[in-house]
C-alpha cells in the first residue's frame, strides 16, 4: 500500500463504522450483564 499527502476525504464512513461497533458491543455487553445480575439474584447457591 502507498502513502500520499492528500488521500480522499471519506472519514465519515470510518466514524460511522467505529461508532456502530462501539454501540453494538456496549449494548450487547450491558444486556448480558443485566441478565447475569438478575439470574445471580434469583439462583442462590
Amino acid at each position: 500500500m502507498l502513502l500520499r499527502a492528500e488521500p480522499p476525504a471519506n472519514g465519515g464512513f470510518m466514524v460511522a463504522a467505529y461508532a456502530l461497533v462501539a454501540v453494538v458491543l456496549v449494548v450487547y455487553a450491558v444486556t448480558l450483564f443485566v441478565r447475569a445480575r438478575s439470574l445471580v439474584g434469583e439462583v442462590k447457591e
Partner: protein
Amino acid sequence: MTSSSSLSASSSFPQSSTSSAVVAARKSIRLGQALTVLALVALAAHYVRAIQYTPIEATQGLAQKIFYVHVPAAWSAFLAFGILGVCSALFLWLHDRRLDLFAEASAEVGTVLTLIVLTTGPLWGKPIWGTWWQWEVRLTSTLFLFFLMVGYLTLRRSIFDPLERARYSAVVGILGAMLVPFIHLSVYMFRTIHPKPVILNPEGPTLPGSMLSTLLEGVAIMTVMYLGLVLVRYGIGRLQDEKEARHAAQG
C-alpha cells in the same frame, strides 16, 4: 428457553442441580465481565491508535481504517463459530451439557460479531467500491452464515426437550462451522471484488509494519472481547439451567 422450564426437568437430559454449578457459573460471569470491560477500554485506545497514530492509506483514505475493526470482528466471529463446531462435535460424542451451553454462548456472540462484520463491510465498500453491497461469494456466504446462525438460535428456542434441542443444535452448529473455511478460501476459489487476506495468505503478511501492528492489536482486543462475552453468556446459560431444574424439582 424460559418457556421450557417444566419440560426440561422431565426430559432424559442429565441436569447438574448442585451449588457447585452455581459457583462455577458465577465465576464464569465475573471473569467474563472483567474481560469484557477490559476489552471495551482497550477498544477505545485502539480507536485512538488507529485514527491518530496509524498512517492513512494513499488510495482509500480514512475509510480504509474501518479495516482495523472489520477484520478483527471477522476473525473473532470465525473463532466463535469454530469453537461452536468443536463444542457441538464434542457434545455429540460426550453428551456433556456444558458443551451444549458453551456452543450456544459461542453461537450467540459469534452472531453479534457477524452483524458487526456485515455492517462495517458496506460502510467500507461504499466509498471504495462505490456500492454498499455486491452479491459476490465472500459477502453472500457471510450473510448466509449469519442467517444460518440466526436459525440455530431460533431452533434452540423452538425445541422444548433439552436433549433433542442439544442434538439438533449440535448438527446445525457443525454445519455452520464448516462454512468458515469456505468463506476464508472463497476469495481464492472464485473471482471476487473482496480483498484477499492480508495476514493469513500463502505469501505471509502484506501490510506495512505500522498498519500490521494496529491490525494485530485489534485482533487481540476482539479475541479478548469474544472470550469475555462468551464467558458471561455461558454463565447465564448455566444459571438458567439451574433455575429451570430447581423450578421443575419444586413441581
